[in-house]
């Protein structure tokens, strides 16, 4: 455990050197919120509505900002790093180190996300609030959001690690990474709120785990009526936890099969 925390600390120091990389979000993300303000103000005006699909104007504008915030907490390159490690031969060195590849990748991802929270999330939250104040937020909704997004981080990490392990079989998994990106964008509500999809498609999406990556954390961030029920919050936590356990078990079993196929290329 001590080794793991030392690795997190070391990676954090490395990532900290590139803090300006994260701070570019100050410039990029307000552009998106400006477009959304124009777009949704026009749409709500033409519809002569205060709510559309159960979202107020403020909630609809902030939905996309909240999706960005979730990305800041959960984004990781684990699948690409493992694939690049296989292709370059570097992964052979990682496998002989006294820490598993899973923990190593987790350490690096945690350090990236700590930097992202400090240099992206907190400043962007302040800037966005100055542009369009989130009158729906409460302290409890924010705390619930943070808790759920931590679980979402674990889910996406395990998912990307599983995709990364496919490179033990196919070497380059670029196309799988792209497909994963498209799948998550649609089914997790990262692209547009799930309510915009036809009912039959929403029913399919609700069977998949991806909605717990973006959709439900964002719903709690927006402090929607359904999320104010604490029993519902517990239900979402239990389902998310269940998916994390299932993904972890699959990861362990898949690792045992993948490592037998290990063949480092390059080096």
């Amino acid at each position, binding site marked *: 455990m001590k080794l793991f925390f030392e690795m997190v600390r070391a990676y954090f120091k490395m990532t900290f050197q590139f803090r*300006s*990389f994260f701070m*570019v979000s100050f*410039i*990029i993300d307000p*552009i*998106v919120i*400006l*477009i959304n303000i*124009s*777009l949704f103000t*026009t*749409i709500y005006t*033409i*519809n002569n509505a205060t709510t*559309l*699909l159960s979202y107020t104007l403020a909630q609809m504008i902030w939905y996309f900002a909240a999706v960005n915030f979730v990305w800041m907490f959960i984004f990781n390159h684990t699948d690409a790093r493992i694939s690049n490690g296989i292709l370059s031969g570097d992964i052979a060195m990682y496998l002989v180190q006294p820490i598993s590849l899973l923990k190593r990748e987790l350490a690096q991802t945690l350090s990236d996300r700590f930097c992202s929270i400090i240099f992206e999330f907190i400043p962007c939250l302040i800037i966005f609030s100055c542009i369009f104040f989130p009158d729906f937020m409460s302290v409890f909704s924010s705390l619930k959001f943070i808790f759920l997004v931590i679980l979402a981080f674990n889910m996406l990490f395990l998912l990307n690690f599983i995709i990364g392990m496919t490179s033990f079989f196919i070497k380059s998994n670029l*196309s799988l990474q*792209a*497909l994963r990106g*498209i799948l998550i*964008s649609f089914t997790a509500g990262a*692209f*547009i709120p799930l*309510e*915009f*999809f036809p009912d039959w498609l929403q029913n399919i999406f609700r069977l998949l785990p991806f909605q717990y990556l973006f959709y439900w954390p964002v719903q709690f961030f927006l402090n929607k009526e359904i999320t104010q029920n604490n029993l519902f919050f517990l239900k979402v936590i239990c389902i998310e936890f269940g998916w994390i356990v299932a993904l972890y078990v699959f990861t362990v079993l898949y690792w045992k099969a993948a490592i037998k196929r290990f063949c480092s290329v390059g080096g």
Partner: protein
Amino acid sequence: MNICIDLIRLFFLQAKIKFSRSIMYRTDFFLGIFISLCFSSLAPLFQYLLFVKTKGYPGWSYFEVILFQGVLLFWFGLRDTLFGGIRPLINDLVWKGELDRILVKPYPAIGILLSSGFNYYGLGSIIAGITIMFYATLKLQITYSVINILNFLLFIFFGLILYMAVTVIYCTVIVIIVFAGRTGEIFDKLLRFAEFPVVIYSGIIRFTMLTFIPFAIWVNFPTSALLGKLPVTAYLSLLFCLIFFGLSIGFWNLKMRKYKSAGG
């Protein structure tokens, strides 16, 4: 004029080489086009879903918005096919210090860069865009006059000139900062203003998009041209495209006078 013709020939030569190289790996080729089409389709799909669940945009009917999406996809495909390869190229050249070998060539360096942008990924979006435009045209039951089509092509052409100007500015910024980082993301987010009908914007944003930095020329005006709703003031944006292009070339030349090789 001879230089322009030579650079166009250079573009087609490079396109032919890149295409021949790519088609050797057929699965990767078709998968690349498919994935690129999926990513390009996100913006039109977003607007379609928005339109279906709400009353859409003021002054735009359902199939007019479909036509708008078709033109948007066509535009994405066209710009990616013609210039999609420039950003990764300039990022790589500057980072490795290899821009110098472009500077010693007998043609303007920026001309060589602009003619090196062919990227086959955009072909899928072009085909999809044309298909959707054809479908929307059938549903709208309109017949395009020669004037409509000529106006459409005119605005697409000048839209490409504006996009070249944006690309030249990007190249200049990369030469200045050396490490690209997330600069491409900044440009992409700014260009997103053009993905929606200008009617949703108000005040200074709308004015800017119609005049000084006429992003509306990429999708709005070509769509309006096809629908026969083109305002006379739209032709003013053609002049601003040329001015913007001239300024971007001036910016590039200014930076090239102070260029110091980096990387290597």
